[in-house]
């Protein structure tokens, strides 16, 4: 963690990050796939051939390649392609909202905890400990049983789950940054704590924050899918990749396509996020271990 002392200008680093990305095929492919997934999700209403939630019993369990139903239909005659595309909207939006919320709370908590130390630090870190000592899925199921399954509740739980990751990593970096000469110098010339945090410390932790965001989004999407799969996530008829697997599990023998396509979509996006995260970590913060 010695290279943090160099403090390169942010804009320059960003630019070179783009250049690095474009030169690295291992990172370009997942970045491209994610870009395509986001565009498809945003454009889903323009692209889908059928209403994703409307049952059509005349066209039940059509195999892939049927005219008008490229990826086939499910047991209620709903178009799989349309549902996979609409599922992308929910899955990506939930994952995105979860990392933004967890990131904001976690980075703030980490900055405050690491910079000020003392009682604040103790309290924040003990809360994190308690949370890590309960298996997440069980916690999520209990909370959802209590407050009811809904999209906002789901996002809330995913934020609850993931802020700890940000807080711990940011805190450990701030603990070191705090003692560096330029931070002490800033303090000596009378800069306020808030200013020091924003101007001198935040830019230094940014790299790790971006890298863990990629991993965390993957984890959040897996968690959303798992909860939806267990029936505690997004409720029917809304399609998400996890809920599609749940509702079609019974038709595994007669209609593999109802399960396989959402499974592929989910796996490809999560794989892309993980590979991109690996690359970002190497590019931005070699000290960060997973």
């Amino acid at each position, binding site marked *: 963690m010695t290279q943090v002392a160099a403090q390169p200008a942010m804009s320059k680093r960003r630019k070179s990050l783009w250049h690095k990305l474009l030169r690295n095929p291992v990172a370009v492919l997942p970045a491209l796939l994610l870009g395509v997934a986001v565009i498809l999700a945003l454009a889903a209403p323009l692209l889908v051939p059928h209403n994703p939630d409307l049952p059509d019993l005349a066209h039940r369990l059509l195999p892939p390649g049927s005219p008008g139903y490229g990826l086939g239909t499910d047991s209620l005659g709903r178009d799989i392609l349309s549902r996979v595309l609409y599922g992308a909207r929910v899955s990506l939006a939930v994952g995105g909202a979860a990392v933004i919320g967890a990131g904001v709370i976690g980075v703030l908590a980490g900055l405050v905890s690491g910079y000020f130390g003392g009682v604040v630090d103790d309290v924040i870190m003990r809360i994190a400990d308690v949370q890590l000592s309960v298996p997440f899925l069980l916690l999520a*199921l209990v*909370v959802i049983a209590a407050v009811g399954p809904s999209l906002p509740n789901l996002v809330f739980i995913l934020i609850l789950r993931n802020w700890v990751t940000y807080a711990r990593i940011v805190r450990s970096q701030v603990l070191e940054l705090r003692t560096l000469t330029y931070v002490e110098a800033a303090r000596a010339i009378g800069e306020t704590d808030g200013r020091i945090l924003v101007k001198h410390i935040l830019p230094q932790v940014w790299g790790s924050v971006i890298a863990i965001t990629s991993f965390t989004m993957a984890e959040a999407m897996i968690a959303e899918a798992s909860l939806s799969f267990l029936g505690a996530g997004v409720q029917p008829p809304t399609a998400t990749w996890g809920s599609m697997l749940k509702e079609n599990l019974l038709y595994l023998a007669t209609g593999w396509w109802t399960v396989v396509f959402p499974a592929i979509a989910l796996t490809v996006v999560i794989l892309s996020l993980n590979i991109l995260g690996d690359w970002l970590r190497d590019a931005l913060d070699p000290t960060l271990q997973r």
Partner: protein
Amino acid sequence: MGRYVAKRLLHALVVLLAVSVAVFLVARLSGDPSALFLGDNSTPADLVRVHHILGLDRPLYVQFWIFLSGALRGDLGQSIWQAQPALQLVLDRLPATLQLALTAFVLSIVVAVPAGVFAALRRGKAGDWGVIAVTALGQSIPVFVLGVVLVLLFAVRWHLLPPSGSGTWKHLVLPAVSLALFSSAKIARLTRTSVLDILGKEYVRTAQGKGAGQRRVVWVHVLRNAALPIVTIAGLELGALLSGVVVTETIFGWPGIGRLAIEAIAHRDYPVIQAEALFVASMFVFINILIDMTYVVLNPRIRLGGEGEA
């Protein structure tokens, strides 16, 4: 060591106390369980009576004290759905879960550690890339996706293994494999990194220079020193496996505590949910203490009871 253990146990108690407050509050948040006891044509007087019987008319802190003192005596209330003590239901289901989680745990270590060492020794070659690719995929396939795909192939298509249920070793294969994949991918990656790390150290090159055989260098010098991070991550993964059983047991109809949790939630059986949450949290805390102790045994240089990440 004694002082360190005492400190960790005290810390664990604080964590468990916080967990029980959280569990208690969430259960109260979930609404009035009286409705479960009352029929459609009950009067307000009935409601008051049920409240009194359940103790819900007392102040919150009194209710918590009753809950906590019961918990300390191992009494976590009666199941609403099945007329049995809640803790008993959890304990009845525990062996099945332990069987599944431990099988997956052993499986992931037996596969992951050799795979990680193998990849590290062939750094940059095809074998290394193969392991990297498989582990990347392994970390990205959600447990339930893998489970469903395995059922589709091995049960539905090839009729080799039963799709669900329990009883014989054949029933154990698919759930254990799908549960193990994520952990083994993680452990394999970490083993690879740790071994690469150690391989670059001077004493390893000294050993190689002295003419020690490759096998001896790896097993004696490298693995012993790479063991620390591997044990840590393996311990953490054991906890993750206990969490992962919820999904795995649901897919494969495995009669463990994971499925119990789902059933209890479906029946709004709060005492069972509370009992399970508390029980599993205790197991988590206990495993974490064990990991930390292993740490100390493996590396005596670690400062006991020091500040920071205890």
